[in-house]
């Protein structure tokens, strides 16, 4: 596989893997929890790397995901105490975890490529360099296969639990009254978000991964009236945006993940302007009469 094709595929697959759970984060109004998770995975990644010395180890992925989950569980615990309200609990938990990660990076790994800049914005092309060879055949970047696995995992989760996931997102109290284990579904979703963020870390970094998770879903939210269509539109925007964003960055000779995030931002701005102007037009009898 040529290097260019491998990297383009990596960009598209990463965008798809992120956009799927992103849909539910946007609908839960907890988009910025992705921010917290994406920062809190850092100490897990560093510790995992310290223990395995292998950046592609699945243990590293799981350890990092668990440290990302600490933000979710920790902030939920603080919220339940009733002492701290709003999103302050997240703000209390994740900067501390991220800082631990930064200190570990600067103490232990000042000689490896896991530097603080890459941590923030990632480097798609660097991630694309480590090629996977099967039986002497070059089959593309190793990261591509990790991201594809995560995308399949996310797709399977959403497909299998779709009705219950939809209801638990829309009306958790009613869902629980039907006996649906909303807490378990929530934790599973958050674990998947953390796994996805960790896997996408090399490609997009801790900050730009938020754009990949949140922006396609937010654009699709403005365009659709049904969840199934929202997910479909989210995927179209994720694929199209990452593809276009890649070439934008390629021709500008700029960081790829930044190109993708900028392009997604442009798509959102266009959708926002279009739907705002449409909404000012009266839409008919029933709405006008109210």
């Amino acid at each position, binding site marked *: 596989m040529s290097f260019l094709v491998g990297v383009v595929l990596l960009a598209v697959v990463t965008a798809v893997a992120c956009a799927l759970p992103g849909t539910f984060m946007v609908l839960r109004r907890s988009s910025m929890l992705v921010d917290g998770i994406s920062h809190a995975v850092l100490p897990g990644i560093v510790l995992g790397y310290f223990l395995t010395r292998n950046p592609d180890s699945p243990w590293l992925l799981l350890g990092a995901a668990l440290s990302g989950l600490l933000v979710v569980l920790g902030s939920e615990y603080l919220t339940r*105490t*009733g002492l701290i309200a709003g999103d302050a609990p997240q703000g209390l938990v994740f900067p501390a975890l991220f800082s631990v990660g930064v200190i570990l990076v600067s103490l232990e790994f000042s000689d490896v490529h896991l530097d603080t800049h890459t941590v923030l914005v990632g480097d798609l092309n660097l991630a694309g360099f480590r090629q996977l060879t099967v039986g002497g055949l070059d089959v593309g970047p190793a990261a591509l296969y990790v991201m594809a696995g995560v995308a399949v995992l996310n797709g399977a989760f959403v497909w299998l639990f779709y009705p219950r996931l939809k209801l638990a997102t829309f009306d958790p*109290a009613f869902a629980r009254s*039907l006996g649906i284990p909303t807490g378990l579904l929530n934790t599973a979703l958050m674990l998947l978000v953390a796994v996805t963020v960790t896997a996408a870390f090399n490609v997009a970094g801790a900050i730009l991964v938020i754009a990949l998770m949140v922006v396609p879903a937010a654009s699709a939210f403005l365009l659709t009236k049904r969840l199934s269509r929202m997910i479909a539109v989210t995927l179209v925007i994720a694929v199209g945006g990452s593809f276009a964003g890649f070439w934008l960055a390629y021709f500008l000779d700029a960081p790829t993940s930044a190109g993708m995030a900028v392009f997604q931002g442009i798509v959102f701005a266009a959708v926002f302007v279009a739907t705002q102007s449409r909404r000012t037009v009266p839409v008919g009898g029933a709405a006008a009469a109210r």
Partner: protein
Amino acid sequence: MTETPACSVRGLSAAYGTTPVLRDVDLEVPRGVVLGVVGPNGAGKSTLLKAMLGLVPPLAGQVEFFGRPLSRVRARVGFMPQATTVDWDFPTTVRDVVTMGTYGFLGWLRRPGRVERERTGRALEQCGIADLARRQIGELSGGQRQRVFLARTLVSEPDLYLMDEPFAGVDARSQQAIVGVLHGLRQAGRTVVIVHHDLATVRDYCDHVALLNGTVVASGPVDAAFTPENVRRAYDVATADDPFLDVIG
């Protein structure tokens, strides 16, 4: 032989954080009645429903439905939450929301099929919102939203309905439609518990009443329990000739 009540609550206490809301609530809901839970703001009316369903963890007490714990008879108990508790911008249609009432009893890998579609269609008709089925839920009026939630609870055809403020924010037409459904349910031998805040309509809608203010001040058939004296105690109104009591008739 006496029939087991649709619901019996014994010694139920619950709190939000460190604030106690319910203290030692005892309540029996006979089968086939419409029971109104009435009381001032902050009396714990909504919390009572949620604690009965285990949505707010009770500190103490026991709740039985048809003589058994909730986990054994979940399909016979339907809950209608307050309409204000959800995000009405959620990308979903009226028909979609009503179908959600069937999700709890769907196999994990199944999708709603013919049976679920038929039940959904019936519930939409019953609540007079069949013509709104394809609307996005954000386009509905307050009364229409309540009817969507009512239909979602009807769709699983439970024997006991726990409804949190079904008349909040409704216009006359929706009110009529909801009352019609409640009376239909009573005629069919179902049991309904509504959290209600309008004292003036208690006699019209309810056969039984529970006056709540942290704990049950009085409960029983409307004629026996819904007396000016009991209402005064529930609302902490001291003077006997307060004009506010005129509304209860």
